[in-house]
């Protein structure tokens, strides 16, 4: 109990004193997860929107697949990206393994299906409502994709936040492809895992608190966005 209390005290000390090691880890975490989010959004959002509007044979299977891929275990994604990026792998010549870039790729692969599946769910109802009117305006499914993405922008922000939360909180993928190298590929989650196993609870706790604060902040943001959405969507 004494240990826990002193660990908390030290943890808050580390945060309040803006400890450079902590800051560097937090900054890398944000950089990796936000970059992964941007990458995944560029692919996942249009893909999800297209899945919402397009009618083609096998559509049901594709939807089932994206839904299933939402539960992709991060370690498995890490392993796949590891195999692709390792020296002997097909993309080995780029020398990306154990770099932040590899971590971004892994997290992007992890959350792209999440963004695509949630985007489809959010936009499908909207498409049912819009389809006839847009066809009357002369817009086919392809033209409808940007329209739906724009009109669903507030709902999609919460989709993005869900993806970001997943990326920021996962440890398996970045651990495997990043290697948790101090000052280079160490992020909050991998640092927490390491420091806990080493017994350095204050640092682990400090990072845990920051991570929680970020997750909470993201959710508060999502709440606010839903409020704005309600105002516009009617």
């Amino acid at each position: 109990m004494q240990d826990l209390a002193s660990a908390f005290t030290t943890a808050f000390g580390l945060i309040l004193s803006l400890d450079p090691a902590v800051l560097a880890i937090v900054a890398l975490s944000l950089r990796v997860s936000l970059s992964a989010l941007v990458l995944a959004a560029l692919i996942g959002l249009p893909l999800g929107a297209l899945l919402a509007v397009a009618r083609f044979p096998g559509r049901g299977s594709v939807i089932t697949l994206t839904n299933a891929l939402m539960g992709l275990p991060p370690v498995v994604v890490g392993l796949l990206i590891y195999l692709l990026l390792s020296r002997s792998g097909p993309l080995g010549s780029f020398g990306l393994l154990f770099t932040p870039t590899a971590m971004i790729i892994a997290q992007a692969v992890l959350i792209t299906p999440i963004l695509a599946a949630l985007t489809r769910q959010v936009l499908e109802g909207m498409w049912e409502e819009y389809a006839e009117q847009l066809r009357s305006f002369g817009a086919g499914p392809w033209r409808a994709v940007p329209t739906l993405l724009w009109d669903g922008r507030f709902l999609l922000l919460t989709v993005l936040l869900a993806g970001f939360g997943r990326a920021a909180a996962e440890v398996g993928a970045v651990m495997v492809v990043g290697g948790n190298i101090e000052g280079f590929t160490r992020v909050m989650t991998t640092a927490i895992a390491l420091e806990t196993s080493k017994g350095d609870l204050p640092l682990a706790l400090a990072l845990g608190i920051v991570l929680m604060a970020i997750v909470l902040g993201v959710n508060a943001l999502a709440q606010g966005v839903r409020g704005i959405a309600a105002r516009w969507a009617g």
Partner: protein
Amino acid sequence: MPRAGLAEMRAPDSILPLRTDGLGFNAGGAEILSDVSLKITAGAPTLLIGANGAGKSVLLRLLHGLLKPSAGRVFWAMPIDLAARRQAMVFQRPVLLRRSVLANTLYPMALAGVVREDRDARAEAALALVGLADRAADPARKLSVGQQQRLALARAAALQPELLFLDEPSASLDPAATRAVEEIVLTLAQRGTKIVMTTHDLAQARRLAGDVVFLHRGNVLEQAPAEAFFQQPASATASAFLRGELVW
């Protein structure tokens, strides 16, 4: 076609008359419309009337190209891809984009390829026409139902279509909002837009119609000038309908 260039120069400058030949539509084995042959010409509004389920909305969707006929064809006075761009449709329940009133008016013009410099002026004029000029910046979906339907009309009017389809545009509106919609429709008609509109409201049909197409159980029983139709319908079914007797 050695003289295609010349033929193009002589292309008709109106999409009317609109003709259908033996038009039919089946849905899940049920015959919704059969053997509809019509000619709709330029001029005062054409009103499609009939009881609920007579096939009015389906006919409108077939004419506008939203549904594919199971039989027969729709003929425009020019190739269909050109004709499609000169017509618009307003639905019973307006589907407004989750954008501002102004953005809703601009959207279809962008799709229709109206040059950018013209869009703002056209949108402004259309919103003024329906009395929503002061609401341009508001979220469209926060408007009242009546205002939403007026916005749907403005959006269509901004396209300056030669022909405007209206599917029961005032069916879910109160009398004041209905009156507003009718005034807009008459204004558009006076400016030369051909109106083709469904209604189950006979009083409305009397107020608006230049000619009437009477549908009954998926068949066109009559097409006649409004005055003649309302005074002396040719079919017994239509007279029963006009007397307010159930004909379904």
